[in-house]
């Protein structure tokens, strides 16, 4: 199975080249995918946590009960 490719366009000549990645570049791409997946999971978890805090803050405001500092921070612009 051939390696993935990349596209390079030379703007002076207009020539477009489709270049197969080297084995080292494929390994780097695979490593980058692992890092990206981990980063994505962290970002998703942070977004979920923030949404939970906001929902809790809103519910407490409606009920007239004290907010935690973390909840209050989600409301301060």
């Amino acid at each position, binding site marked *: 199975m051939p390696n*993935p*490719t*990349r*596209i*390079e*366009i*030379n*703007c*002076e*000549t*207009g020539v*477009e080249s*489709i270049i197969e*990645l080297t084995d080292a*570049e494929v390994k780097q*791409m*695979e490593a*980058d*995918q692992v*890092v*990206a*997946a981990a*980063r*994505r999971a962290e970002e998703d978890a942070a977004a979920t946590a923030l*949404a939970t805090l906001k929902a809790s803050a809103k519910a407490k405001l409606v009920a007239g009960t004290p907010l935690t500092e973390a909840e209050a921070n989600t409301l301060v612009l």
Partner: protein
Amino acid sequence: MANTMTLIASSTVGSGGSSSISFSSIPGTYTDLLLKVSLRSGASAYNDYVLLQFNSSGGTAYSDRQLTGDGSAASSGNRSGNAQMFAIASSGASNTASTFGNGEYYIPNYAGSANKSISLDAVNENNGTEAYANLSAGLWSNTAAITSIVLTNNSATNFVQYSTAYLYGVKNA
């Protein structure tokens, strides 16, 4: 104000996909650059950021501030110290089939000797519950003239077939 636009080069990704799209030997004869893209990645997510790197220069020189709406909430944030510019959201593999994220990057004074500011705006397509609109202000803290641009995506997957990138030069007539 620059008022003409000339297509410098363009590319459409073929059937095998492509890990990156790069423009090299960009002439320094224009005032500004405008890059218009329509991209979809292989990421298993609704939202995959496009990464933009100039002159194959990484390091920590890229930063941005962004406003984002995802269909149910708005958010803002900033990034700094990155090796690439986090640009727009491209559509990922979870988006509606055959839809693409569309965007523009405007790079004024790309051949000048000051740091390079960039404006970026984009949307991605999804006929479902989650889709993104993104507006960003980017900075490449480097004084070199921009002579090459490489586009990759944050998930390190391929751009899929029919993804496109068009690079225009803009200048006074």
